């Protein structure tokens, strides 16, 4: 720690960083127009150093960290610092050009200048529910690819870029409003950092930033050092709506002193939107390790330093151009299962049984009477894994996502859809001394002809239990009761009046079922719930 900095100043400046990213996030949600951002809060905000290291991320969606890891370095590769000026705004989304982890996550960044010096960047990403009903054979089918480029120069918008982008979107009016909210959020971040530097001085704030990263690193090292040394291997099955065959993915996790190494093994990348770009794998590892080692570690670049991540390039978990990546979060959820499965062998009392392991998505799209298009995307929560000392949580988003649901009274006002049921899938949680959390059954009736595209995993495999606990039930998508109505493209036509049903998987159980207390069994039965069949 430098002489002029004491731990108190560092703590005070760290608190100002987290205030600023929270404020950016709140402004983004409140000013945006698409339901996916304004109600479901599928967006994240952060501050970066001048060269793009993450100083502080608002704790919204763990997956989004992957969007921030390479964006600024790639901007700087194409735009030398001398060419940047206050009021510039950069936009991008392409995973192979540093822009994000899949195309709908659009990243925007604004440089923060303090007295003519580049201090850092305000950055955010938001999941735009657009690029709907596309193909996923390779990335060129998945939407418009945007490398990090300048959308605004010195406060002046470059309308050509916007026109090109909007022409490629199905719901351009929403995109325009959401991008405006993203820019306004960054602006707040820039102002707050300028105020902070005016108070403490640029050098002090910079030094505090560096110290906060060193602090996160120290915490991560201290946490890893508490775990036993050794190597643990774990394998799991990966299958989804577009990948019927069960693929095997695995990890070898080594703990040595205060460092951890993770070697992933997975099949060659697939011709489906399931591949994981390396930044997405990094974000997943950071989440999964932090959740076991120490959930309080600050969300900045420092926590990554004690971790080494390896995966063969060209494979499912470290794909290369032109692999499609839209549904990478399905694979990332399984990566969390791998890491937790390995760590459960090292520290059994700190790891839960597998959570539902899926991000169940239903994305509806159609044409309004006036000819404009509509897109409604929803991700539906499942059960979390049973804990070593208590049941899993029912109907919660797990691991890499944490979006809200869309209120029925907001949904039905915006789209020709009626929600007819939204209840627990009462027999979905894995059996055990502690039960896995329950998934849900969410049934829509469409009131106009439209398309639906689904995404989901654990449709034929099941979330594993621990220490004798049983697996959670698989999930399903059904049209008018038929679970096989949707083929491997993951899409189907719906006619007005059709019922579309989403059932999310339950979490795995923990401990032998015979160990469950009789009073709890009686309460389960009173509540009308039963454990998933073994």
């Amino acid at each position: 720690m430098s002489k002029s900095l004491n731990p108190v100043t560092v703590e005070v400046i760290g608190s100002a960083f987290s205030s600023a990213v929270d404020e950016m996030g709140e402004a983004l949600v409140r000013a945006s127009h698409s339901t996916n951002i304004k109600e479901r809060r599928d967006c994240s905000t952060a501050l970066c150093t001048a060269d793009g290291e993450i100083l502080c991320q608002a704790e919204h969606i763990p997956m989004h960290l992957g969007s921030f890891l390479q964006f600024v370095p790639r901007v700087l590769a194409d735009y030398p610092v001398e060419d940047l000026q206050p009021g510039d705004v950069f936009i991008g989304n392409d995973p192979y050009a540093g822009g994000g982890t899949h195309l709908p996550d659009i990243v925007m960044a604004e440089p923060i200048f303090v007295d003519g010096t580049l201090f850092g960047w305000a950055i955010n990403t938001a999941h735009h529910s657009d690029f709907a009903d596309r193909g996923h054979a390779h990335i060129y089918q998945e939407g418009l690819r945007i490398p990090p480029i300048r959308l605004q120069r010195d406060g002046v918008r470059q309308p050509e870029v916007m026109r090109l982008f909007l022409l490629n979107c199905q719901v351009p009016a929403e995109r325009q409003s959401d991008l405006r909210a993203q820019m306004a959020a960054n602006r707040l971040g820039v102002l707050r950092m300028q105020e902070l530097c005016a108070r403490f001085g640029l050098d002090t704030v910079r030094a505090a930033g560096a110290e906060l990263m060193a602090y996160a690193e120290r915490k991560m090292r201290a946490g890893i050092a508490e775990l036993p040394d050794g190597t643990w291997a774990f394998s799991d099955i990966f299958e989804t709506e577009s990948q019927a065959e069960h693929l095997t993915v695995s990890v070898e996790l080594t703990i040595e002193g205060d460092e951890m190494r993770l070697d992933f093994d997975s099949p060659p990348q697939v011709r489906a939107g399931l591949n994981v770009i390396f930044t997405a794998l990094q974000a997943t590892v950071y989440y999964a390790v932090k959740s076991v080692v120490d959930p309080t570690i600050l969300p900045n670049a420092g926590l990554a330093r004690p971790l080494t991540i390896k995966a063969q390039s060209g494979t499912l978990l470290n794909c290369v151009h032109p692999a499609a990546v839209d549904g990478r979060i399905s694979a990332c959820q399984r990566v969390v299962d791998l890491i937790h499965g390995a760590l459960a062998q090292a520290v059994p009392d700190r790891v839960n049984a597998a959570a539902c392991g899926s991000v169940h998505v239903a994305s509806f799209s159609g044409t309004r009477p006036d000819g404009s298009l509509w897109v409604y995307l929803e991700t539906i929560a499942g059960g979390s894994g049973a804990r070593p000392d208590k049941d899993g949580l029912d109907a919660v988003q797990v691991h890499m996502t944490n979006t809200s649901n869309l209120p029925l009274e907001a949904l039905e006002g915006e789209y020709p859809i009626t929600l007819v049921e939204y209840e627990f899938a009462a027999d979905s949680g894995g059996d055990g001394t502690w039960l896995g959390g329950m998934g849900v059954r969410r049934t829509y009736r469409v009131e106009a002809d439209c398309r639906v595209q689904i995404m989901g995993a654990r449709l034929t495999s099941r979330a594993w239990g621990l220490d004798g606990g049983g697996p959670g039930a698989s999930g399903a998508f059904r049209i008018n009761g038929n679970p096989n109505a949707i083929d491997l493209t993951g899409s189907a036509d719906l006619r007005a009046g059709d019922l579309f049903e989403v059932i999310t998987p339950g979490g795995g159980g923990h401990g032998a079922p015979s160990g469950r207390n009789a009073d709890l069994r009686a309460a389960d039965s009173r509540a009308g719930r039963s454990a998933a069949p073994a």
Partner: protein
Amino acid sequence: MWRIGIDSGGTFTDVCLIDENGGDVHIWKVSSTPDDPSRGIARAFSEGLERSGAHAADVAFFGHGTTVATNALIQHRGVKTGVITTAGFRDLLAIARQKRPHLYDMSADKPRELVERNLRLGVPERLRRDGSVETPLDEDALRKAVRHLVGQGVEAIAISFLYAFLSDAHERRAAEIVAEEAPGVFLSLSHQIAPEFREYERLSTTTVNAYLGPVMHGYVTALKARLADAGLGVAPHLTQSNGGVTGFDQAAAMSVRTVLSGPSTGVVAAQALGKSIGIPDMITFDMGGTSSDVALLADGTCRLVAEAEVHGYPLKTPMLDIHTVGAGGGSVAYVDNGGLLKVGPRSAGAHPGPACYGQGTEEPTVTDANVVLQTQNPQALLNGQMPIDRDLSMAAVGRLADKLGLGVMETADGILDIVTANTAKAIRLISVQRGHDPRGYALVAFGGAGPVHAARLAAELGMERILIPRTPGVLCALGLLMTDLRTDYATTRIRLLEDVTVAELTEIFDGLNAQAETWFDQEGIAPDARTIALRVDMRYAGQNYEISVELPEGPIGPDSLNALCDGFLAQHRQLYGFVAQGDAIQMVTWRLQATGVVPKAELPAFPEDGPDASDARTGSRPVWMREAGGFTDTPIYDRAALRPGNEISGPAIIDQLDTTTVVPPGMTARVDPHLTLILERRP
């Protein structure tokens, strides 16, 4: 005639009496009686009157603040409650917004379910999004559901059907059936409790209201009887989260509106104080043992929020925009495993309390840091009533200092800096994040620990003026005497601003007004004391979060719509930094606040006595002042002996029974005619 305010907390019950004629203010504290708070209150009432030489028959107004509803919610001591929803949605209460409680901590739990699954039932009925009926209410199924719940022994039932905010027909019919099947059961209907859109939050609010209703009903019934026995001849009033008071019956029927009544009266008192001094822009800072409450008053009023999460449960009910942060005198300081100094939110509370209490704890608290620095009296707290041991504080802070490689004083000073930064973060949330620059605001500090830390906090936020009320420790009780009767009505009607006519605007508000008139009559409020304020929550079509815009006073006319439009655009720019030229604007929730203006107690003013404060000086002690770079001999003053006009230049310490005020070097404290201390930076 006298006005009495009684604020009943967990440890003490505070009484404040004001003589309407002379303006005499009396304060008194008795121990609370948590097993039956009405006992302590009745005692406080009688003793307060006795000490003031007043009689129960002379009481013209009785205002009461209570934590009964809050505590019942926190401790899950509500009644066994049943929930009836639209069929297919029985689990909505448990699914909530499907987010997990903590992003990384997998052992974290959701707030406890107030209603277990076998008491949550769906009944066939369904309205469409325009309020028309798709499926009529299945009355047999409803009857069956009610019988089941009664068979399970519920004491309260919450009914929340989809779109009930658009049409109350099904809920009203359901209420009739419940009244037949379960006459004694407390009933809570969503269209009455929270007639606004977003089904989960409406259901949650309606459920909490049912869960707390019978508790509150039992409480006010017992209290009313005790007060009548003690001779009280006027109808007692109870505070609500909106900063106003209401009659006991309404408080029981709408118990969910009293959940945040405690902190709101402090804000109301600060508001009255600001008015008496002529300072309309203030930030309140109420710091106690475990937490601090902060609120912002712009132009003399505190923003009302329509929804907030309270103890984990989202409530759609009008609440003053008060934020709580886990930063109090008892907050524990520690070094975490990454080597940084942290303070709170864990608190040592009153037991074991700070290390200096000598009750066995070795961890330093914020109070210990103050004792080490001698900003707080190193021998005893509470004006000498509670002896303490500074050596224990020194040892506790010293252990931290060793871990940090800092000096003991530097560490104690750092603890205060960090607790200040934590509080400043909460204040930024209610000021900067809402588009207000705190530098233009005065800081009103109260609570036992507020005046100790006020100067540091003001410096951290660049605020230049601090107000310390005359009775910082019992400000809430005083606030009870400053408040009006107040209640809120709302309805959701989503309409484009450009389509709304003056006739429609009038019609919607007439509907709310009719409800307000009924309440005015119930509360016996005289016609000339009745006022209403109208607001509309507005947004750009496409957004889902609204900005609440006030209608100018006076009759509704064509200008009203223009004023709403202008008000919306100005606030949108202030909050988000832009306006979307040409985009359509929607009106969403229409709100009416009804106020029954009651005659306020005037704070007495005293004649000026000149700047010389030496008569109040009681001695001096070395106090560690950062501005002075170390210990500096600091004069001590007795607050009770200070007279209007007195001036004290920092460094100085001003002691009084319920708090200590720190005046750092470079600041001057002045006593105003109402005996408020005003601290300002010396030019």
